[in-house]
């Protein structure tokens, strides 16, 4: 029978296979993993979040999401690998064990399931959600421009046919609203990491304004350490910095909203590569990408453990 030990992490999977993986992981590890449904997508698909917890109630937590832009397949694949890694290393990795002793980890692997299914069936290059808003000729909203942080400013488009369409209003996308509601109701999330591809970047707020965040110095130092850890494995080179200074102005972005909610350790990753395959990264790079990214994630989580706030 299929188990998460026989699951093939070195290939891309469709939505059903990823959801089956999640159920297997929960069934194999009922004392550590549970599956929450935080909402439903536009096309009424469940939005599943894996919760890794050793108990307690409402403990400080880390949130990691992958796949908010559906065509960035290496991110969902890395999310699957992270989930298994947490199980595998929960005891033999001292750092991870100490993190799990005190904190919970929430992992949303397929944050945009409608878009993901669409990339698997209709259009491999689809990025946005699959919502249809009355006043728009085109389908989909960029879920990384739909958050209530600088919403509608420059750095997003008001054109429904654009890949960076911000949507008719903040949180118009159920995929976004579900996370917003979850973060607000949980109230104790201390780190929020949203994973994209590609470009090999580690970014922190802000994207909608050039005003540095109050915690810029600390976030920059963490980024430096995290990128050093990431590069130590395979030499993969990353740049890091605030969104607006490192790439461009982006309004309504996820981590700008989470930072403004008081979640100090808010980061966005842009995984491999820097532009040979782009979104079509070969499957043989899934595991090395996930392995190196995991080292950076552990730096961020360890820093958060050592610097409670």
């Amino acid at each position: 029978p299929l188990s998460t030990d026989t699951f093939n992490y070195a290939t891309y999977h469709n939505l059903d296979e990823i959801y089956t993986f999640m159920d297997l992981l929960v069934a194999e590890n009922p004392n550590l993993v549970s599956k929450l449904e935080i909402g439903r997508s536009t096309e009424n698909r469940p939005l599943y979040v894996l919760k890794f917890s050793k108990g307690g109630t409402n403990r400080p937590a880390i949130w990691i999401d992958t796949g908010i832009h559906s065509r960035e397949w290496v991110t969902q694949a890395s999310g699957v690998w992270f989930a298994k890694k947490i199980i595998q290393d929960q005891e033999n990795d001292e750092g991870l064990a100490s993190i799990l002793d005190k904190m919970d980890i929430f992992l949303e692997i397929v944050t945009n399931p409608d878009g993901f299914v669409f990339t698997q069936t209709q259009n491999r290059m689809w990025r946005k959600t699959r919502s249809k808003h009355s006043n728009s000729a085109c389908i989909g909203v960029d879920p990384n421009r739909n958050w209530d942080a600088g919403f509608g400013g420059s750095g997003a488009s008001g054109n429904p046919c654009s890949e960076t369409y911000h949507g008719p209003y903040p949180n118009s996308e159920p995929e976004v609203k579900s996370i917003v509601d979850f973060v607000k109701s949980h109230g104790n999330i201390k780190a929020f990491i949203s994973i994209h591809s590609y470009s090999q970047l580690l970014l922190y707020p802000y994207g909608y304004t050039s005003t540095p965040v109050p915690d810029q110095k600390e976030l920059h130092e963490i980024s430096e350490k995290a990128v050093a850890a990431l590069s130590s494995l395979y030499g993969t080179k990353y740049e890091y910095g605030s969104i607006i200074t490192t790439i461009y102005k982006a309004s309504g972005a996820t981590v700008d909203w989470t930072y403004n909610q008081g979640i100090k350790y808010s980061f966005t990753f842009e995984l491999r590569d820097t532009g040979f395959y782009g979104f079509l990264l070969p499957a043989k790079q899934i595991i090395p990408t996930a392995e190196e990214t995991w080292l950076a994630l552990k730096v961020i989580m360890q820093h958060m453990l050592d610097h409670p706030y």
Partner: protein
Amino acid sequence: TETFIGHQVLRIVPTNDEELQKVKELQDLEELQLDFWLAPRGLGHPVDIRVPFPSLQPLKAHLESNGISYSIMIEDVQTLVDHEKMEMLRSRRGL
């Protein structure tokens, strides 16, 4: 299902403000159906654009007439998509 036969991904690295401006203006040419994989960020940073086959010649001519150099990052997008699909099928069959 959308196919990408003949689509190419071009890489442009703007080296001066004028080139950067011209590349930014491409984003408004909706008729070319350009898909910006990497949007313009600034001088020296790559801009990657997936170009549908019918737009390839007009775009290349436009870039060349404006003296904007480009490289071809992906020769044929469909070839990579097909390879990816085949690998997934092979893995599923193995399962």
